């Protein structure tokens, strides 16, 4: 009974949207890469790098939005590395992706240790504050949940719409989707598959880093090791769950976050306190696997995903 009551509280849905926000950014980023035909396993490390870069920028005195831009640029830097190795050189996307994750994570930790050699607990920053949208935030239940979030969360929702429009309503989007379905056709049109794919990976990696930055700049106000904690891998599952469509991916992220918010609250009920807390912490990962199992039969994978394209080769 308690569980049903939780579902009707505004604070629950507000938490779900907050938990969903970083996932939305990173899932969107991965979706763009995969739509162009490149699996980006650098996502986990790029999120770590973004989380640190944005937070560090603000800590050293820049504004919050400048921090977001710094995070994005750092993400794009690692995206450039990933795309050079996987697109023109056509190297294994699995190996390069894991390598980029290792490189991004370890260089972030190295930078953290150099920047803050003597601290035991990382310093806090003045993070994004909730902004209540006039009128809309007055709607019962929906208002506090959707329209009293931080501007960083609103940006996530706006980006989903922008990416959806670009993917489905513009020649650029068509070119990106075609690069992931039938690169030879793109090349026959006189377009450069290499440029399209590299661009998609670089932009997508920028979004992933923004997802990481959301953790340190909006969800929390500080940087911790292990703070991304597998969220990147979950986003890869969310892309499959959302059948490579931005709208569905957004829905998947919110649904997933709702489960996550629910498990935190169930843990605190009488019933939940009798179950080991690790069981609840496992749920997001188990859910992701189940989602993959259910969706992977129906999902329409981009036909050229993980297939390198070498011009002049038939």
């Amino acid at each position, binding site marked *: 009974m308690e569980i049903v009551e939780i579902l009707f509280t505004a604070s629950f849905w507000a938490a779900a949207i907050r938990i969903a926000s970083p996932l939305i950014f990173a899932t969107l980023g991965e979706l763009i890469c995969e739509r162009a035909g490149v699996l980006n396993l650098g996502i986990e490390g790029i999120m770590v790098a973004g989380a640190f870069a944005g937070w560090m920028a603000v800590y050293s005195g820049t504004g919050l939005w400048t921090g977001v831009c710094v995070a994005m640029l750092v993400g794009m830097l690692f995206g450039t590395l990933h795309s050079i*190795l996987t697109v023109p050189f056509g190297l294994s996307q699995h190996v390069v992706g*894991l*390598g980029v994750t290792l*490189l991004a994570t370890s260089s972030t*930790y190295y930078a953290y240790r*150099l920047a803050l050699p003597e601290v035991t607990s990382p310093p806090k920053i003045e993070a994004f504050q909730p902004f209540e949208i006039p009128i809309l935030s007055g709607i019962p239940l929906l208002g506090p949940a959707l329209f009293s979030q931080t501007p960083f969360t609103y940006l996530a929702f706006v980006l989903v719409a922008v990416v959806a429009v670009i993917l489905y309503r513009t020649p650029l989007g068509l070119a990106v989707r075609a690069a992931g379905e039938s690169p030879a056709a793109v090349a026959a049109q006189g377009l450069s598959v290499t440029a399209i794919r590299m661009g998609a990976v670089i932009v997508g990696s920028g979004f992933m880093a923004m997802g990481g930055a959301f953790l340190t700049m909006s969800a929390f106000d500080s940087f911790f090791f292990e703070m991304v904690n597998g969220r990147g891998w979950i986003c890869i599952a969310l892309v499959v769950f959302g059948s490579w469509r931005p709208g569905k991916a957004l829905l998947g992220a919110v649904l997933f976050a709702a489960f996550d918010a629910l498990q935190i609250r169930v843990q605190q009920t009488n019933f939940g306190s009798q179950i*080991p807390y690790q069981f609840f912490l496992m749920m997001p990962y188990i859910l992701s696997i189940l989602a993959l199992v259910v969706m*992977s039969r129906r999902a329409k994978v981009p036909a050229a995903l993980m297939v390198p394209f070498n*011009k002049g080769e038939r």
Partner: protein
Amino acid sequence: MRLEPIKNPSLARSLLPPASALGVTVVIASLLAMVAGANPFSVFGLILEGAFGSKFAILETLNRATPLIFTGLAVAVAFRAKFWNIGAEAQLYAGALMTVLLGTGFLPWPGVVILPTLALFSILAGATLLLVPALLKTRFGVDEVVTTLLFNFIFLLFISMLLEGPLKDPMGMGWPKSARLIPEARLPRLVEGLRLHWGFALAILSAIAVWIVQTRSTLGYEMRAVGLNKQAAAFAGIPVNIVLVKTALLSGGLAALAGFSEVAGLKGSLTLDLSPGFGYTGIIVAMLALLHPLGVIVAALFVAGIFVGADSMSRAADVPTYLADIMLATALLLMVLAIMLTRFRVVRD
């Protein structure tokens, strides 16, 4: 630009790119050491000295290499068949879990009986754990990269649950730690007086065994064929899915031996910090070894040396140990590129 295969690569073509990859890695690491305010020459000197400079250092490196040989083999076997097992970390813990479940008094047998039994059951545990992602792949087409990665998180939480619950040592002063193995269940030292246990010998033997399986058996041939071209392998009558499942069982079992060897040879009990990412580092080891089982031994010694050396360098020169991880990640990425450049030529158009 586009890539053109080279028919008969010259000696320089085969050697220059990998050598440059290592060279560039060293240059990048030197720059990073300078950023940290240290002299790169002394940093590399300290790493070398910390890894191989004394009897103690060498033994420490060999000890650290032992689990990496197992996880490196696990990854090499799987990647050869293009089965992307990123879950060696979880399989390692599965082996360690089985070792403490059976080795803390449940089986009161003498060493010659209990040790092979523990090893065998560890292998079974690791193999079973990887069977799930393997079947999800062959039955439902679920990508194993994501499932094996997520399994790492799930299984570590499961271990944490056990260590704070039924497996918690009542004598452990409240720490989440399992009971200690009975003395019979501990792997003896290779040479009396030297801190190196039989796990190292087992790792070397496993590498040789994997090499024999890969080069001399039908399964080895089939795994290679599946890895090279699935469609062609299926066309040639190779049961692709069965080969993938067998590969997964072998890979999971090898990774689990790392857990067995760490618990029975080194630690004596199970804690949550048993592995500082040996499963993930195994991927680097396997790639640096070009997926060759005997190469895994050399690569594991190299990687272990860098880690052990970086630990002592960090204390002496005040450079964060993460320099070692950056070096390895850089070496991995550049090496993959270098290997490709030994076989292809970049042509401008």
